[in-house]
């Protein structure tokens, strides 16, 4: 990891030899393998966390399989909970980047092995996701501390290490500064992963002190490192203060974790606690009603909807819709009763075909049938149509065919 940090500026303009090309290629291969788990296709980083999950599942399976390695079928089986298409795509990318390779480089190889670098890379990535690199920086600083104290370390290595650390701290501080100037929500979201503890600063200073005492000639590099560390702790403090300030002034209690508030309440001095209520007026003056405000309030009063004028009425006497409805209803019933009684002709039931034939021609029969059906459908009238299965055909008559059925006065209504 220190390597990747240290190799920030590889821009040497050396003559391209076969050897240097080979060295470049091996470095690139390490990078590729390291980030293979994050690659969406061979050219870009994943967009869907599921793709990383597939890689992780695969690596776990490889670790379990041991020296048996894994065949393609076994890999598919292990990843059976993921869609087949995603799995195949993933496997192709991982193979292309060298994270999963044939056990022996020969054609038609069925067994595969996983690359150690990729697994380590994935662990590193997972940790970065969880705490945004802060604990990584802790580890890195601890390692660097050991490295620079190691008697075998050369001056060049120490210089590279100090350069890398200075670069990391500068970028870190820059990110914090950007956040501190941005929206408070973003700051709250991101900053806790970024801002440092005393411990990080102390560790960085100890690395710095070790380098400076062992290689006084590196004082220029060390000055850079020192400045970067101070810039970082400044930015970190500023971000923290901005967050605390905004939490205080907006009284948005969610901006800081509850523990922070509790600690403050328990440890703050009386003056600081009292300062919380500095902006409050307890004997607030009575509200003022300016004459112009009163006028405005009256003008803005909700107005009732104006009563709509009713549409013009005709001069003719009009009993109204309701009266017409009621009258027509009783008259319809009367008419239906008369027709039904006429069709029955005093009997309790009469075949429908006979009643229709009695009506004469088809138009009249048709009207009669409609009225009988209407009477049947009126529950308040005691007449029912009861149909049977038969069908009588008589091509000569106006009623050329008729279903069998009777029209009757229902017993229920007497």
């Amino acid at each position, binding site marked *: 990891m220190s390597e990747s940090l240290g190799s920030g500026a590889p821009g040497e303009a050396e003559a391209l030899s076969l050897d240097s090309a080979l060295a470049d290629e091996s470095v690139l291969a390490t990078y590729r393998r390291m980030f293979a788990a994050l690659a969406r296709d061979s050219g870009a980083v994943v967009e869907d966390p599921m793709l990383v999950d597939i890689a992780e599942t695969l690596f776990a399976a490889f670790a379990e399989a041991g020296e048996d390695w894994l065949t393609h079928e076994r890999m598919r089986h292990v990843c059976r909970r993921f869609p087949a298409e995603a799995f195949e795509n993933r496997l192709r990318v991982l193979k292309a980047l060298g994270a999963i390779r044939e056990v022996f480089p020969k054609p038609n190889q069925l067994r595969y092995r996983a690359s150690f670098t990729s697994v380590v890379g994935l662990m590193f990535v997972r940790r970065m996701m969880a705490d945004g690199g802060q604990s990584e920086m802790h580890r890195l600083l601890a390692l660097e501390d050991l490295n620079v104290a190691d008697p075998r370390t050369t001056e060049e290595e120490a210089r590279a290490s100090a350069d890398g650390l200075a670069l990391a701290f500068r970028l870190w501080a820059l990110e914090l500064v950007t956040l501190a100037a941005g929206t408070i929500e973003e700051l709250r979201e991101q900053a806790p992963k970024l801002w440092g503890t005393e411990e990080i600063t102390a560790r960085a200073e100890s690395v710095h002190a070790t380098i400076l005492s062992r290689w006084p000639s590196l004082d220029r590099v060390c000055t850079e490192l020192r400045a970067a560390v101070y810039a970082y702790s400044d930015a970190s403090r500023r971000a923290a203060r901005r967050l605390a300030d905004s939490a205080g002034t907006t009284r948005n209690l969610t901006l800081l974790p509850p523990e922070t508030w509790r600690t403050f309440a328990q440890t703050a001095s009386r003056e600081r606690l009292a300062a919380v209520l500095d902006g409050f007026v307890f004997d607030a003056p009575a*509200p003022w*009603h*300016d004459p112009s405000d*009163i006028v405005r*309030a009256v003008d803005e009063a*909700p*107005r*009732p909807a104006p009563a709509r004028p009713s549409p013009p009425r005709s001069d003719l006497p009009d009993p109204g819709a309701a009266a017409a409805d009621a009258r027509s209803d009783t008259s319809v019933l009367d008419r239906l009763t008369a027709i039904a009684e006429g069709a029955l002709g005093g009997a309790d039931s009469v075949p429908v075909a006979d009643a229709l034939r009695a009506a004469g021609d088809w138009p009249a029969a048709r009207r009669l049938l409609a009225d009988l059906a209407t009477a049947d459908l009126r529950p308040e009238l005691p007449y029912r149509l009861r149909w049977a299965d038969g069908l009588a055909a008589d091509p000569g008559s106006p009623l050329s065919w008729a279903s069998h059925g009777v029209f009757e006065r229902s017993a229920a209504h007497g």
Partner: protein
Amino acid sequence: MDDTALAWARARALGPLPLTPGVPGAPDGMVRLERDGRAWALPLPPDGATPGLLEEYQIAGVPVERSGETRRVLAACLKCCWRDLQADPWPGEPAPVEDVLSVYQHMIGRSDDMHRNWALGALRRLCDSAWLEQADGMVRLGPRVAAWTPESHHQLRDLCRRLPSPAPPAAAPLPEGAGPAGEDGDAVRPAGASAGPGVDAIAGPGVGGALMDAETGGGEARA
């Protein structure tokens, strides 16, 4: 402690200070108000500065609870208590709470119980802050209305002319109310105002109400 400073602090927190009636004098910078054997000291900043000045400096004043409603109720009280529009609103006359409520209900065009209760709440808040005084079902303007500068009275006068009169014209105020009504009718619109009291007296609240709505509408259009 300095007596003047103490008096101002007290007035800021508690409103107009009650004074002993009959004993002249008031703390520095305050004006002495007397009415019906009671006296108050009202802080009156120099040069006609009022808290309304804060708005010019774009500073938020003291927040008013349900400001629109409260101010409409205050306007209704003004309409009822400020009978003589040529004089200052202070001291004003007492008016029945029911009259105030009926003016308010006409103003907003709602007469349901909910709005009535809200109006009663606004009345109570106005009484708490000394803008009004309320006792025995009667409302009076409170000492704080004397803090309105004379220059701002014309807006309120116009407002009171626009507002509908209390719905049922009580028998007692009519004869003495005819004078001011005729006067402001002359000033604003002679026809409507001269017809107003007469029609009310003959035709009762229904027609009067309709006429008042029309007057309110006219006033709004003019504003």
